[in-house]
């Protein structure tokens, strides 16, 4: 008895509530096929044209006995709703936080409640595609499906048109060395002595060798092709205006920023800038980008 208050006693109680739950024959068959065959099965009411999972002996709409009408479902489905469990209490299967979701398996008309793992809590959303991962050790319960996790696309892709926003920007920085210039000369076939012959270059307005203009310019390629929009992007147009030379040893930053949507074609226009370590504008221009289209 708690006596925190001198004139009002409080009883602390605890009751043990042991129980069993009989899954029944139908429920047990559902669990058996998950355990032994790694297959999730539902029961179909032909009359209502509905597939129920978890299974039920009787269609509660039309009262048909459907207990023998098993159909095999895909082990993948779509999240129709979810919640993130953040409080901790002793009856939970895992230490929070974790995601509890309603998952409509492909081929089913009802949702199954289960755990989703493998997705950042902040990134969890309704509509994502998930796949069942079966447990290593069976308990002959619904936890023989250990959890569901997002189906990863076959290829990673950059931002789609719908994911891009005005103002998004990305950049890439690299120091241009003598070795880079010599390799670029080899790649392009441009052996102009301005880039290769120091004695010749001393007589030019620059007084020393400079890099090919296209060399710093090319630093925008990793930005557009790998960052923004990113993997899978096609660039049908780039325009550049060169403002300053790039000397050996200069560190050049190429930056792209989304400035315009070309709605009719679902393309975007990006503003491009190249700067060096002295904050001088090396070049500027723009690009038209065809962002990657989500596959499957």
């Amino acid at each position, binding site marked *: 008895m708690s006596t925190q208050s001198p004139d009002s006693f409080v*009883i602390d*109680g605890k*009751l*043990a*509530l*042991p*129980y*069993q*739950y*009989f*899954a*029944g*024959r*139908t*429920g047990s068959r559902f669990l058996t096929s998950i355990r032994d065959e790694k297959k999730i099965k539902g029961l179909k009411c032909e009359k209502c044209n509905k597939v129920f999972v978890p299974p*039920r*002996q*009787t269609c*509660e*709409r039309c*009262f048909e006995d459907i207990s023998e009408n098993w159909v095999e479902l895909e082990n993948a489905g779509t999240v129709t709703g979810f919640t993130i469990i953040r409080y901790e209490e002793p009856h939970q299967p895992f230490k929070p936080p974790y995601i509890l979701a309603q998952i409509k398996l492909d081929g089913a008309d009802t949702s199954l409640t289960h755990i989703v793992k493998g997705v950042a809590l902040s990134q969890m959303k309704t509509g994502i595609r998930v796949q069942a991962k079966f447990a290593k050790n069976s308990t002959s319960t619904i936890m023989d499906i250990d959890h569901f996790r997002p189906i990863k696309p076959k290829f990673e892709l950059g931002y789609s048109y719908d994911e891009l926003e005005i103002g998004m920007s990305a950049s890439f920085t690299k120091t241009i060395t003598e070795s880079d210039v010599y390799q670029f000369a080899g790649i392009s076939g441009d052996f102009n002595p301005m880039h290769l012959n120091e004695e010749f270059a001393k007589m030019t307005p620059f007084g020393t060798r400079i890099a090919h203009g296209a060399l710093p310019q090319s630093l925008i390629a990793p930005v557009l092709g790998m960052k923004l929009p990113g993997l899978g992007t096609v660039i049908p147009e780039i325009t550049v205006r060169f403002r300053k030379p790039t000397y050996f040893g200069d560190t050049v930053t190429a930056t792209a920023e989304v400035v315009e949507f070309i709605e009719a074609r679902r393309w975007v226009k990006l503003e491009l800038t190249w700067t060096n370590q002295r904050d001088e504008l090396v070049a500027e221009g723009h690009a038209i980008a065809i962002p990657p289209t989500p596959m499957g």
Partner: protein
Amino acid sequence: MGYKKKNRHVGIVGVGETKFSSHREDVNQAEMIHEAVRQALDDANLTMDDVDCVVHGNMELFEMIHQPDLWHTLGSGAYGKDAFRLTTGGTTGGTLACAGDNLAASGMYDVVMAIGFEKLQEGHTTGGITNMADPLWARKLQSGALTDSAAVKLIEEFGAERARRAAMTYRIIMDKHACLNPNSHRAFGLDWDQMDDLMENSPPLIGDLRLIHMCSQSDGACVVIYASEEKAKQITDTPVWVRDHITVHREETLDLCNNYYPTDTTHRFAAEKLYERNGITNPLEYFDVFEMYDPSAWWGTDWLKEFFLLEDDDHLKLVENKEIMIDGKMPINPSGGVIAANPIGATALVRVAEAAKQIRGNAGPHQIQKPVNHALASAFGGTMWTVLTMLEKELNW
């Protein structure tokens, strides 16, 4: 009393009962309920579309699940219908019968389905019952559902030998009835030559209450479909009319100190009021069958006195002369009663269902052979709670 006559007559048009047993692993709760639902619909020749309202009842804590009526929609047919949940302990089935009658009589619903169920094997009955008592004053003192209060009372009144013999006679009669009923959970085939052995050797539970006297823990479900007079006549040629019902609850009559009821029992109080307002002066003559909620043979024997408003040892004589047998003057529990099967939330509704079947004349192997026109059914809850239901063959009162 605020009692007024019913708004309109109500008839029972369909009943369904599962087989009662200690284990039903083959079905989950919704599936077990569905067996009785389907049986009752078939019995009434109705579909779920004809049902306007579903009333669901059990002892909520006994299976340790919350809001069972929601789980059971898959089997109960309550999908998209008006529905209620009742949980009044041992009387749940009796309260379901009251609700079915009242809801149909009210005019709000023409056809009402009452569902009682329990799957005691899944839960922990004593855990649930213990939780019923005040945590401060009573919980640590509780003995669960077992008490020998009726044995103490009968032995004190009539002497140990006569009382024990009467209780065992009652017990053997109930088992003989249970053996006729294919739905019985427990039917041992007891006979009179086992009387002395059982009185001596059945394992004692509390005082003179022995294992053989006591009801079981059962799994099972029962469904009764109620309909307004007009509907009932359309649905069936043999509606069983619900003449009246009464509920009396008075917890303080359970006197823990001396095992005596200091005032009238709720049984006697309920019976007196019910008979008075229906003009029944001699219930023993009036009724043709009584389905009693008899949790033990001791209680069953003792309570005959209360329900039939008897004096002295008339109730013992009824038992001793075997007048309570199926072919006797006042057949008690042709079904075998609660000692034969006790799926608690269904138990009291089974009494009503069985009484209705006796009136219809299609109870099966345990049908009373004489005509049954007037039937009484009772419900009992551990905190002195009584529900009585009166059923009639003819709509002529």
